[in-house]
Every structure is written in C-alpha cells, then in structure tokens.
C-alpha cells in the first residue's frame, strides 16, 4: 500500500515540478511583491514590508476608474450575452432547415482575430473629420446627432465596449448551449406534452433545469473572463486607456508594469491580488447560488 502511494507520487512529480515552477512560484511571488514597499526591479531591493502598495492602488483614481469600468462591463455583458445566447440557441434548435448554416454563421466571430474585429468596430463607430462612420450615418437617419463612440462621451465608449464584448463572447456560448439543448432527451418533452404542459412551463421546468450545469459553467467563466478583460478595450481605444477613461483592472496591472508610466511591479502585484480577491468572492457567491438552482444528474 505504502509503496503504491510512493509510486503514485513519483508519477506525479514531473507535473508538480512544472506547475510549481511556472504557476505556484509566480503566484506566491505576486503576493510577496504586493507587500514589499518601494521595490526596485533593477537592483532588486526594497525598503520594507507593509500595506502601502494596497493603500496607494486603492487611492489611485486610475485604479478606481478601472474597477468601475470592469464592474460595469461584467454586470452588463455577462447576463446579456448569456441570455441572448440562450435565446439564439433555442431558436437554432427549433428550426430544422439551414440549422447548420446558421450555426456556422454564429460561430464565425469566435475564430476571427479579436484585434481585427476591434478595428472593424472602430471603423463602424468612429467619427472623424472626413466621415461619421456607419453607425452615425444610421443614427442621423433617425434624426439623432452624430456621437463619437470612440473618442466621445464616456457612456458612448462604454456602450461600444459592452457591445463588442458581447459580440465576441456570444459564439462560444451559443455553441455550448446548442449542444446542451440537443443533449436533452426528447422523451422528457414527450412526457411533458402528453401531460398538457405549456411551452413556457416546459422551458422553465424541464429545459432550463436540464441544461443548468452548462448555463452555470457559462456564467462562471463569463464572470471570470469579463473581470480579466483587457485586449477588447485596447482593440477599440488604443493603448493609452487611462487617458480614454476606459481602462480595466488587468489593463491597470499591465500599465503599472510596462506602460509609459510603468515600472512598478509592487503596485501591479497589489492590483492583481485585489482582482484575485474580487474574482474569488464572486465565484464563491456563484457556487453558493448554484447549489440551489443547478441540477446535476
């Protein structure tokens, strides 16, 4: 028995070494950095330890702006994208002809490059001296003034960011949900129909509980993904996100490390740890809620 155990651990050793070197050690390092005050990456020295880095980050208006942006992004895009994806998957699974075609069309955004798509969005929404952009042309049709969605007011920029994020994450969710819907055994629908169940009740009482593990998976990964958003904002608004008021928490971390005003691994680490704490809390809440509403069979 003992020997068996030892053998098992031996087999796991390479994986452990690898994980330790490339995941666990850096993780611990981030925590350590976040408590070292005045760390200098060139000389690898620091003055002392304490909570100063956290205090600095939490009082930095750029960080607060980034937190606000991230939360707005999460709160708007996660429910909207999941809900829309569910509606589209339901529609897809109820049509027979051309279903494959539509599935492909809906999946295309997933395989296109984020930055390229961002550029297209920018062209659609941007207002320049020469042109108003396609979206503004449409708005003008309805008698609304031109709005610069890329360099204009905050809400307009936030709208584009949310729109873009939803557009980018939807294909994956549709893919997951259509296959989840397809895996529900038809016999349950038959039984429900014979028992005179309305379509709405079939959806809420049978379909939804049966695909709940997948919906839950999408919500969790959706939250985590949205909290880690960064490249989407860069694709739309360029690299100077602080100036555009469109920074996210991960963007802030990046700027603190490598941005024009960067070179502060301690502040970056503190911000990263704060992000970690937020994601952990939200995920725990999700798990608690799911206990009641997610049915694994």
């Amino acid at each position: 028995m003992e020997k068996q155990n030892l053998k098992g651990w031996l087999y796991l050793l390479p994986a452990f070494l690898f994980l330790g070197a490339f995941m666990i050690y850096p993780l611990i390092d981030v925590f350590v950095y976040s408590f070292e005050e005045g760390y200098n990456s060139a000389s690898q020295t620091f003055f002392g330890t304490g909570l100063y880095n956290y205090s600095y980050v939490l009082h930095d208006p750029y960080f607060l702006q980034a937190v606000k942006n991230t939360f707005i992004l999460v709160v708007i895009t996660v429910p909207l994208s999941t809900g829309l994806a569910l509606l589209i998957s339901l529609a897809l699974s109820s049509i027979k002809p051309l279903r494959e075609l539509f599935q492909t069309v809906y999946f295309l955004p997933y395989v296109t490059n984020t930055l390229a798509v961002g550029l297209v969005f920018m062209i659609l929404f941007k207002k320049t001296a020469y042109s108003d952009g396609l979206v503004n042309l449409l708005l003008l049709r309805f008698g609304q003034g031109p709005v610069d969605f890329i360099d204009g007011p905050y809400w307009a920029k936030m709208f584009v960011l949310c729109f873009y994020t939803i557009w980018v994450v939807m294909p994956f969710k549709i893919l997951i949900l259509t296959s989840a819907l397809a895996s529900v055994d038809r016999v349950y629908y038959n039984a429900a129909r014979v028992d005179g169940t309305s379509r709405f009740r079939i959806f809420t009482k049978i379909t939804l509980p049966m695909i709940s593990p997948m919906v839950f998976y999408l919500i969790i990964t959706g939250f985590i993904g949205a909290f880690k958003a960064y490249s989407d904002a860069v694709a739309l608004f360029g690299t100077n996100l602080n100036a555009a008021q469109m920074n996210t928490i991960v963007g802030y971390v990046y700027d603190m490390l490598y941005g024009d005003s960067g070179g502060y691994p301690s502040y970056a680490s503190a911000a990263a740890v704060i992000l970690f704490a937020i994601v952990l809390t939200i995920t725990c809440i999700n798990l608690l809620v799911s206990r009641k509403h997610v049915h694994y069979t």
Partner: protein
Amino acid sequence: MKITLEHVTKKFPGRGRKRHEEVTAVSGFDFEFPDGKLVGLLGPSGCGKSTTLNLICGLIRPTEGRIRFGNDDVTELAPEHRGVGMVFQNYALYPHLTVKKNIMFPLENLKGEQKLSRAGMEERALEAARLVQIEPLMDRRPGELSGGQQQRVAIARALVKMPRVLLLDEPLSNLDARLRLQTREEIRRIQKQTGITTVFVTHDQDEAMSISDLIVVMKDGVVQQTGRPQDVYDDPVNLFVAQFLGTPPINVFRGSVRQGQLCIGDAPVLPIQGVPDQEVIAGIRPEGFVPDGSGPLCCKLDRVEVMGRDISVISSHECCQAPALRSIIHSELCVDLNSDTVRFSLKPDKVFLFQSKTQERIRFEAAGTQ
C-alpha cells in the same frame, strides 16, 4: 370513452443509405377500443406497439387513417389537448424533480375550472402514490430509485390527473416476477375501479392474457387477430398467433393430411374431416396430449418435471420443429418413467392445422365428434 382507429398507417422516412425505403411501423390498424375496457396490445419486439401508442396519444401523426376518441376526431389534435395519461417504456421521469413533484407535475398544468389548490394537489398526489405503494419514497429523486420503483412512480404520474385514456407501454418489464404479478393485479384493480379506457402494451403474452378484456396481437405492424384472450388462444387464425400465445408454447410438427387422417411422420394420429390431402403444419397445445399406452403418437421420453398439480413431460419427436416437445398432463395420469418412449393420444380441439406455405389456419371437423 372508446377509442377508434380507422385504417391507421404510420410510415417513417428511411435514413442514410436506405433513404428511399420507408419503414412501415403500423399498417392499416382498424380497431375499436371499447369504453372502460383494458386492451392488451401484444406482439414481438419491433412490431409497432409503441408506435401505435404514440399515435393514440398524439406524439406522432398517422400517415393515413383517422383516430377518434368517442365521437371526436382527434387525428389532428396535439397531445396536450387529448387528455391521455401515458407510462413510457423508459419511464421518462424528470430526473431533477423529486418523486412528489414528478407526480404533481401533470396537476400543476391544469388550468381554469380544473385547477386545484396546493393542498388539493398534494392530496391527489399522495392518493396516487398510495395506489402504487410508493409513499415512503416521495422525497427521493428518480435516480435514487430502483427500476421497479421508477416504474410505479411513472404509473402514479399517469394516473394522477384521472385521464380519459390510460396508455401503458410495457409498464412491468423491469419488475421482478413477484412484483410484476402484484403490480399487474394492481393495474387491473385500478382500471376496474376508475373505469378508464386502458391500452396496455406488452410482449409478454402471459401478462396480456391474464389482465386484458381484449387482446390485439400484432406482427410487423399488422394486426393479426383481436378478441377475448381465451377466444384467441382457443382459435388462432394463423401459426404466428398460435405460437405467440401460451406458455409453454404450442408444439409445432411437420405433418400431412392423407385420406381423412392427420399423419405425423408415417403414423396417422387424428381422424379429421373436410380437409383435402396436402402437406400441413400441425400445432398441438401442451395440454392437448393425453398419455395413453395405445395412443398413436409415439415420442422419445426425455424427462418428467412435476409442477405441483400438473406434470410436464418433456420428450422429442423427429417431426417436431423444436428439439423438446412439452406436454402438460394431470398428475393422476401416470407415465412410465422407466420406458424409453411415451405414447399419446390427442385432444382434437387442441390441435390446429396450418397451411405449410401461408401458415394460415386450416379449419377441420374432428371425425367422430359429430
């Protein structure tokens, strides 16, 4: 309420390489299921029993023909409006709901005047659970039940809304022998009590014979024979029906009719009238053999099994299609166990003749009975 099927046919489109060949699951089904009776739908696997049931409940539409409930034509009516209760072959219990919620599910769908209060629903659910004896399991999920328990939950769920028609698709196939016997009596009792027109699908002829008012025997989508179980057993229209009904099954011999005698091998075993000379298939029920020292049918004795009141004599005969010939005789009639052979005479009303090609019944009059 009576259910009438008028020449109902269901064809499924072929798939893949056989795209152009339609599958005919049910063909020209004509029958009236009388009001308040229990009808057993009987046939081997794949003969279209489940398809017939799905046609009655409306989950599939017939390719041809009409279906009537009472005087209403329901052919085009969706299943949710037909008011039938159904027990599916694989139960179809909702895995995420408890037994109690499963049973209450149909009640929660009721609308308008039929709508019940919460307490009323729970009362009805408990009543249904009591009928099938599953009250202690009300808070479990289907995944935590045995097959037999799941089946009983499914029966309770089908009964709870007091449907006009109850459809049961092999409801007993997962029960052990004792529970199966008990549950089938239970179904019979509930059906009598409620007077719900019931269609009971099974491939077990014993089950169908014992509880049905009428049986319908199907083969390859075609109804072979309908009638009271005893009548069908005593007067099958073809070899298939004769072989399908009865345990132990009927014994089938190659034989011939020659000059007013049924011959098995070379021995004339039974005088018959009104049949021209020809090759025939002879089916003899196990209870049609009478041990008789001077009987005309001589078989090689294999062994004897005592089954309480009766004895089962297992022997063999070169003309018998099965290697073992089973006959059941009363225990007071004795057989010489030390002999290698056993001789039988035959009861004429337990002997059926069939055409050797079409396997249709050839009717005859036993000589000497007139």
